[in-house]
């Protein structure tokens, strides 16, 4: 390999990284704006109408500008280094996860061989950011929120992994690209219980309503993020919406066939984005429609409903794969 080859390689890596970063900054804003408008209309309101002129399209940009201007406060009793580093730990895993999710066989920043495993492992790191934030804030509400988040994440990680394992088993591949290639419409029925389990645990993993116990404002202020202000707080919010994007795209690739669809040769990645966007709207819809679960209901749902359901799905998939082989 000559130096010229490494030069183009480096350029390609930089370009791919920049593309992922751009998607990482734009897609969560799109989801956030959609949430503003969809939630407003589901509640008989209009939502943002002024920022940017046309139906408040620039509301989140304006919010971002506001967050930048705010004072960056670190509590006196806080563990300074950990407190300031926590938002990055919450944010970066979703950036990494977005890099390996294929929008089409060609449109993928880093086509990892076992990307399904990588995505699950990496998104599980994000909880460390919440734990760090809660512990370092030196605030009882923050600590309670972090503990709730940890308990919730531990409970819901298991059904999620089992549901993804079932899909991997059905496809005979650990690569997201391979899974989407192996997908057929018949999976919509065959993997339906797993899909439901995955969606429910994804919403719980994102700490979105109805599973927003860790940030229940009427009980523990804002959980682990209580002491955060300004840009660091905005990073936590961004990580929540980036998480919705990652989980929605993952759902589209795992259960809805990703880029498969009519005219998939020309449209390709557009199909994945459209399917992912529909899932994101469903996640928003759940937030508007349902009240928050109690902590014990949350655990009961995870261990008594989702885990058995995911195990049954895994057994069903295994039996079918062996029988049809």
């Amino acid at each position, binding site marked *: 390999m000559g130096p010229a080859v490494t030069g183009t390689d480096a350029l390609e890596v930089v370009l791919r990284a920049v593309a992922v970063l751009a998607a990482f900054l734009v897609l969560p804003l799109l989801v956030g704006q959609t949430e503003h408008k*969809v939630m*407003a*209309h*589901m*509640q*008989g*309101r*209009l939502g943002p*109408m002024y920022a940017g002129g046309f139906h408040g399209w620039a509301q989140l940009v304006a919010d971002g500008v506001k967050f930048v201007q705010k004072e960056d406060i670190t509590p006196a009793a806080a563990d300074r280094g950990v407190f300031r580093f926590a938002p990055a730990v919450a944010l970066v895993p979703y950036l990494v996860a977005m890099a390996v999710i294929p929008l089409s066989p060609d449109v993928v920043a880093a086509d990892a061989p076992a990307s399904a495993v990588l995505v699950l492992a990496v998104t599980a790191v994000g909880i460390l950011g919440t734990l760090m934030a809660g512990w370092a804030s030196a605030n009882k509400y923050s600590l309670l929120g972090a503990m709730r988040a940890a308990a919730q994440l531990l409970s819901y990680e298991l059904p999620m992994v089992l549901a993804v394992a079932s899909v991997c088993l059905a496809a005979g591949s650990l690569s997201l690209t391979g899974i989407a290639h192996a997908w057929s419409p018949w999976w919509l029925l065959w993997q339906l219980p797993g899909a439901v389990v995955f969606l429910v645990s994804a919403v719980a993993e994102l700490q979105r309503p109805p599973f927003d116990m860790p940030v229940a404002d009427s009980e523990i202020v804002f959980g682990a993020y209580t002491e955060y202000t300004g840009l660091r707080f905005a990073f936590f919010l961004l990580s929540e919406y980036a998480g919705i994007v990652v989980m929605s795209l993952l759902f589209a690739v795992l259960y809805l066939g990703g880029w498969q669809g009519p005219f998939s040769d020309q449209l390709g990645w557009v199909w994945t984005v459209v399917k992912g966007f529909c899932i994101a709207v469903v996640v928003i*819809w*759940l937030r*508007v*429609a*349902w009240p928050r679960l109690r902590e014990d209901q949350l655990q009961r749902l995870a261990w008594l409903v989702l885990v058995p359901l995911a195990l049954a799905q895994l057994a069903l998939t295994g039996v079918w794969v062996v029988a049809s082989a």
Partner: protein
Amino acid sequence: MSEPVKPQPSKRSSGGAVPGILKGLATTARTLARPTHTAEYPDVAPHLPPRSRGVIALLEENCTSCMLCARECPDWCIYIDSHKETIPATTPGGRDRQRNVLDRFAIDFSLCMYCGICIEVCPFDALHWSPEFEYSELDIRDLLHEKDRLGQWMPTVPPPPALDEHAAEPAEIAATNKPARAARTPAARPARPTRVTPAPEAEA
């Protein structure tokens, strides 16, 4: 312990958990499809009901400085200054007459609680409700409206709404339509007609 308790609510409620969950989704989806209830106030003027209590307007010509409004005001937010002027007699040998001249009439809307008692109590219809409400100020002292400002609200006072069907006749109209009362006996009150006739309005 929670197990015997838990089935009871699902029995009592109409559907159980899953229908309830789906019902929630259906309700929000239906609301999404319907037009919103938001009134876009600064862009679209609100539709105010008649008799809205926005601001109090003063018809200065009707005011006799009788001070009834200022006394009845629960907040003491009406300020009235007046002096008396003497009108010389118009007929030779007649008596000079005095009338009140209004110097200052001010309502402090930072104190006013919009009870409307001043308007109710005014015997000469000098005070009226106007539906205008956009008179907020950056300085609270600017909410003290003097009489010229109060007079400027007068054109915004709506005409009184039509009476309901079969409503009682308004007192003013009833009084005018009533046939004049006949004098009981001419001898009983001989002095009265002569004392009433030199009313100033009649001659001016």
